[in-house]
């Protein structure tokens, strides 16, 4: 284990003991296509702690997305293991996986992936419905979440009637529907203009600080460096480097 002890300045309760929330052990993903064998991941072992804000960077094709899908329980590794909250994902049944995706993890995608035929509020309350929350309660919580992302007055709008930034904010509200302990963001600002991207980043930072949600972001956006605890570089399916933010800032200072 080469995990660097996290800097806990952003944690909501600095005195709380650090706990590992995601742990991967020798995680590999191998694709076979005919004779050809592609190694998307070459055995990644990493630990992520509760309340951390981690940014994952790497060129496209580096295995960044694959890594993401593995720790988000959206795909299963060819070799190695993934533990979420110390639970081995590979041993879960389909129903238990659905439960995990529903309650423990919130997903935010580059292309928002809102359900086109639902209103903003319906989009936000859908995971609650899957989780068995009663409709009145879901509605109330949904409105609260929309207020949190500043879209309370647009609850009845369909995705097609909203701008990209607004859609991404609805997606964030949706990802928080069942109070997940992990937030997985796959290039959340890539499709947005500079200013809207700033707004989204502010929301993510606020969530991480105030609610203590463990946030993992894959991104090319360098602004992310300012708000994260740790940075992780992936290259050719392996971890290139993991560093705390303050260490990186020193290096950047050298380059400039």
């Amino acid at each position, binding site marked *: 284990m080469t995990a660097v002890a996290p800097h806990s300045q952003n944690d909501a309760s600095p005195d709380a003991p650090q706990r590992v929330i995601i742990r991967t052990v020798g995680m590999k993903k191998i694709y076979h296509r005919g004779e050809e064998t592609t190694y998307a991941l070459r055995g990644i072992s990493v630990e992520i702690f509760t309340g951390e804000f981690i940014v994952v960077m790497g060129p496209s094709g580096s295995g960044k997305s694959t890594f993401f899908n593995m720790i988000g329980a*959206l*795909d299963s590794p060819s070799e190695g293991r993934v533990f979420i909250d110390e639970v081995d994902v590979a041993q*879960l049944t*389909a129903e238990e996986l659905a439960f995990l995706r529903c309650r423990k993890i919130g997903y935010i995608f580059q292309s928002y992936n809102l*359900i086109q*035929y639902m209103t903003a509020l319906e989009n936000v309350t*859908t995971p609650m419905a*899957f989780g068995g929350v009663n409709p009145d309660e879901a509605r109330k919580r949904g409105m609260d979440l929309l207020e949190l992302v500043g879209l309370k007055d647009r609850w009845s709008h369909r995705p097609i009637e909203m701008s990209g930034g607004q859609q991404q904010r609805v997606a964030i509200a949706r990802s928080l529907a069942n109070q997940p302990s992990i937030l997985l963001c796959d290039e959340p600002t890539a499709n947005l203009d500079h200013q809207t991207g700033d707004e989204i980043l502010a929301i993510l930072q606020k969530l991480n600080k105030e609610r203590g949600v463990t946030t993992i972001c894959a991104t090319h956006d360098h602004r992310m460096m300012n708000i994260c605890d740790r940075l992780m570089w992936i290259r050719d399916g392996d971890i290139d480097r993991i560093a705390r933010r303050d260490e990186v800032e020193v290096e950047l200072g050298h380059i400039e």
Partner: protein
Amino acid sequence: MKKIDVQNQPVLPPRRVFQIALTGVKYRLFRATVTVAVIIVAMAFLMNILTESLIKRAVADSVREQIVDLHRVDRWIARLSMPQPHEDLLALLTNGEAEAEAWTELAARGGLAMKELEALQPQARAAQDALHFFAALDYGRRRVLVGPAESIQIFHRLQEAGAWEQFAANLTDMKTLRFPTDMDSFQAFLGDWPALYDALEGVREGQSAALAALRAQLGDTPLMGALGQVDGAFGDQIRAAGFSLSAAEADTLVSEVERLEQTLRIEATINNPGVRQKVAALRDVLPGDVTLSMIWDLLRDRDRAVWFIAAMQENGLETDRLTPEGLEALARQRAHTRLLQVAEQQTMGAGGGLMGIGARMTWLALVSMLVCAVGIANAMLMSVTERFREIATLKCLGALDAFIMSLFLIEACLLGLVGGLGGALAGFVLAGGRMALMFRGLLVQAFPWGDVAVAAGISVMLGMVLAAVSAVYPSLRAARLAPMEAMRIE
């Protein structure tokens, strides 16, 4: 190692799933409309076939006796002109005691005892079965099996030297053919055939002798004219000649002949230039354009009938026994007769096959179902494939496979239901309208409401089932995929 603390995901209540499916359909209304249209067209075709066939069958059932009555005079003229053909006699023999009068007549003509007739019955039945088999054969194969012979000549031909062996060998070669009986019993039947044939010939000779005597008594009087007085002496002569003729039948025949005779007289007026010109002037057309149906239309009005008789007298035509009331009744009767003739032609092939819609129609219906199954499957496949991203997203949010399946199944059933209902209605209106134009009054009493309701039910059910079945596979595939795989496929 920590114990797994995740639980199973609750199942969404059906009402909620239905709501979500409905919102989805509403949002993609145009796409859904296209799918529904495919189902409507397919189901309308099916319903159209079913309804038309059912109506035809019902009409055929309700007018069968009237149609038989239609040919009463023709039948008697045929009966009194020549001996009955062998095939008819075979049919009579097979039907047996069901038609007691004909049966007695048969015995008397052939000079056969009842016991002998009964003994011939099984052979007559075998002969009929064989004749049906040969009649249903296509020309080429019949030619190979029995040469140019047709109907009962086939049995004679098979008596010839070597013919049987050749027939049996050829039949064995034609592996797809199934002869109604096994070869041994057919050979045994052929052995008995000369005796049966002799008996039939005996009956025919008896009929010929009786007919010859009748004709001698009739002298030069045409048969049709004589039948007009069949309630008198001629009727007695017919009975004396051994034909069964009840008094009631005789009375009906007389009025039928009278009506035929009057009809012929009215229809002959069209050849009279004077009458023709008067009708043309009344209808404001050229004399050359006057048609028979124009005249019959006129006669359905009492005042016009009076006017028409006057016109006939003016032009020196015989109006003996023609009354306005009679002509009006004749015109109305003729309209009904025309309907019956249409019904007779149209319902010729009715019956048999699925729900009595006829074998050919059953095939058409099955093929149409196949075509529509493919169409619906394609529409559903498209609709599922273009929503892979949505499915993946729903799975990320914690949807169970069962939820995704039921989402698509509900949508398919909904579209199938709407399409089935629309198709059933469209098919019913089309078929009902066409049949109403064809059969008019005959349809009112005979309309098969119950059967048509069943057909509509079948169409709706089938629309739903086809849509649901064709949605199962693609949605199952989509639901089983790992979320990220599904997103990548798009």
